[in-house]
C-alpha cells in the first residue's frame, strides 16, 4: 500500500469520524470541546506544529553521534 493510498483512506476515515459527531450525543466539559471535530483538529494542528517545532529544536540540540565519548579538542591536545 503506497503512502498516497494510505493518505486518502485516512482522510476518508477522518471525515467520517467528524461527520459521526452529529449522530452521537457528546458530553463536552469545556467550551472549546463544543467545536465540531475539535479533537481531530487539535490532533492535526498539534502534530503539524509539533513536527515543525522539532525540526527547529533539532538544529539546536543535534550533535555528532560520539559527542559524549570523543575527547574534546582541549582534552585531545593535553
Amino acid at each position, binding site marked *: 500500500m503506497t*503512502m*498516497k493510498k*494510505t*493518505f486518502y483512506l*485516512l*482522510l476518508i*476515515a*477522518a471525515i467520517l*469520524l*467528524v461527520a*459521526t*459527531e452529529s449522530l*452521537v*450525543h*457528546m*458530553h463536552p*466539559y*469545556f467550551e*472549546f470541546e463544543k467545536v465540531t*471535530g*475539535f*479533537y*481531530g*483538529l*487539535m*490532533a*492535526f494542528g*498539534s*502534530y*503539524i506544529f*509539533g*513536527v*515543525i*517545532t*522539532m*525540526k527547529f*529544536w*533539532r538544529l539546536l*540540540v*543535534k*550533535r*555528532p*553521534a*560520539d*559527542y*559524549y*565519548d570523543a575527547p*574534546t579538542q*582541549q*582534552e585531545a591536545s593535553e
Partner: protein
Amino acid sequence: MMASFLELLTAQPGLLLILAGIAAVFLPTRINALLLIIAPCLGFCIWLGLDNNSTLHSLQINQIDFVVGTGNATNTFALAFLLISALAGIFSLSNDDRLEQVNTLIYAGATISVLYSQDYLSFFFFWEITAITSAFIVWAGRTDSSYGAGLRYLVQHLFAGVLLLIGIIGQYQQTQSFALQSFQLDHWYEWCFLLAFGIKAAFPFLHTWLPDAYPRSTPTGSVVLSAFTTKMAIYALLVHFTGQKALIVIGCTMAIWPMLYMVLENDLRRVIAYALQNQFGYMVVAIGLGTELAVNGAVAHAFACTLYGGLLYMVTGALIKGTGSAKCSDLGGLAKRYPILLAASLVGGFTIAAFPFFVGFASKSLTLSALSKEHMDIAWLALVFSSVAVIDALAIKLPYFAFIKPAADQKTVTEAKEIPLSMKIAMIALAVICIFPGIFPHSYYQLLPNEKYWDYELNSASHLLTQFQLIVFTALGFVLIKLLKLYPNQYPQTLVDVDILFRKGIPSIWRELNHISSSAKLFFAESRIAQHYGNLRTMSEKIMISRLWPTGSMVIWVVIILVATVMLYLWQP
C-alpha cells in the same frame, strides 16, 4: 523461630524475592533463570493471601487505604510489579548472566518491600537497595557506555537517597516518629522528600538518567529497569503529596518536554524512555489534582504503564537480540521476519497511545476526566497535546521504522537471527494482559482505591469517537508530513538534553580550575618554601612506616576499630 520467620516472609511478597536473589548468588545460573519466574509466582501466592493477613494493618492517608485489601493502591502496585517480574523472568529465560539475575530479584523484592514499608527506616533501607541493584543492572550491559551511564545513574540515585535521609531526619526531629505520613509542603524537610521522589520519578530537568541509563542496559535489563524505580517514586508521591497543586504544573512540563525528543531520537529505546517520562507526567498531574477519580487515574496508569513499558522494552530487546540494534537507522523491513514482534510492538504502541480497548485508554481516561470535572482546561490541553507525540512516536514511528519501511540495508533482514521462544511467549502473554483490561474495564477498575468510580463509564460512544479522532488525525498528519518529505530523518546522532550541563559544563569548569591550579602549582614549585617541603617529603619517605602505609590498610584498621567499638558496646557487662 521457624514460625516467626515464615510469618515475616509471608507478611509481604517482597522479602521472598530478596531471599531468592541472595540464593541466586550461589545457585547455578540455569536454576536462577527458573527462579526468576518461580519467585514472583510464589510472591503472587503471598499477595493473594494478604487480605486475611493480620500482621499488617491498614494506613489511612488522604482517604486512601494503604496495605490491606485488594481494592487499594499498595496492593495494585505490588500486583503490577509481581506480574512484570514474572513475565520479565520468562523473557530472560535464555539469559545466564548471574549479575543480572541476582540484582533483578533483589531489585524487584526491594521495590515491593518499599511499597509495604510502614516506617521511614525500612522505607529508606529498601529504597537504597533499589538504587544500588538497579545500577548493577545498567552495568550488566558491560560496555563502556553502560559503565558511564551506570555511574551517572548511581550518583543521581544516591543523591536522591541522601535527600530522602535528610528529609527523614528532619521529619523525625519534628514529629518524634518514623511513621509514614502525608505532607503539605510547609516544612523544609518535606521539600527534601519531594526532590528525592522527583529525581526518581523523572521530574523535568532531573530526568536525564532515564533516557541515559535504560537504553544502555542489556535487552532484558531495560525491561526490568523500566518497571520499578519510577513507579515506586510515583507511589511515594501518591502517599506523601496527593493534592499538592504544584505537581500539576510539574506534571504538565514532564509531559511536554520529552515531546521534543521522542520524534527526533534514532534509538528506539531512548524513544521509549522519553515516552515513559511523558506518561509519568500524567500520573504526577493526577496526584497533584488529588480528587478521588484522579487518584484512581494515577494508580490505574501506574499499573498500566508498568505493563506496556515492559512490553515495549521487550520488543526493542528482542530486536537487539535478533538484529543487534534497536536504532531506526539500522532497522526496517522486518515485518515478514518477525510477525510476532510487529504484533507486540503494535499492541504496546496502541496501549501507550491510549487506543480504545487497550489498557492505556482505560487508565488515561480517568486522569483526563478528573481534569475536566475540575475544569482544569490548561492542564487538560497540555496532556492531550502531548499525547499526539506519543501516538506518533510509538504507535506509528516504532512499527513503521522497525518493521514496515523498506530496510536500510538488506543484510539486517537476511542475517536477522531467530528470537528465543521464551521471549515470544513473554511478549504474547504481556500483550494479552494489555488488551484484557481495555475490553473489561470494570473488572480492572476494581483494583483501584476509590470504590466510587469502579463503575466509571469508559466506552461511551462520544468518548470512543473523540479518541479515534485524535488517533486518526495524528496518523493523517504523519502520512501528510511523510508525503511532503518533512518528517525528521532518522540517523545516528546525539541529541543533547539538559544533561549537557553536567556532562560537558562541569568538566569544562573543572578543566579551567585545573588549569588555574596547575599554573599556581608551577608558581609555588619555584618558590623557596616548596624546596623545603620537597626536602621534608624525601626525608619522610626514608622512614619505613610512612613508606609502607597504603590507604587500604588504613581502611581495614578503621573497620576493625569500628567493629570492636560496636562489639564492646553491645556486650558491655
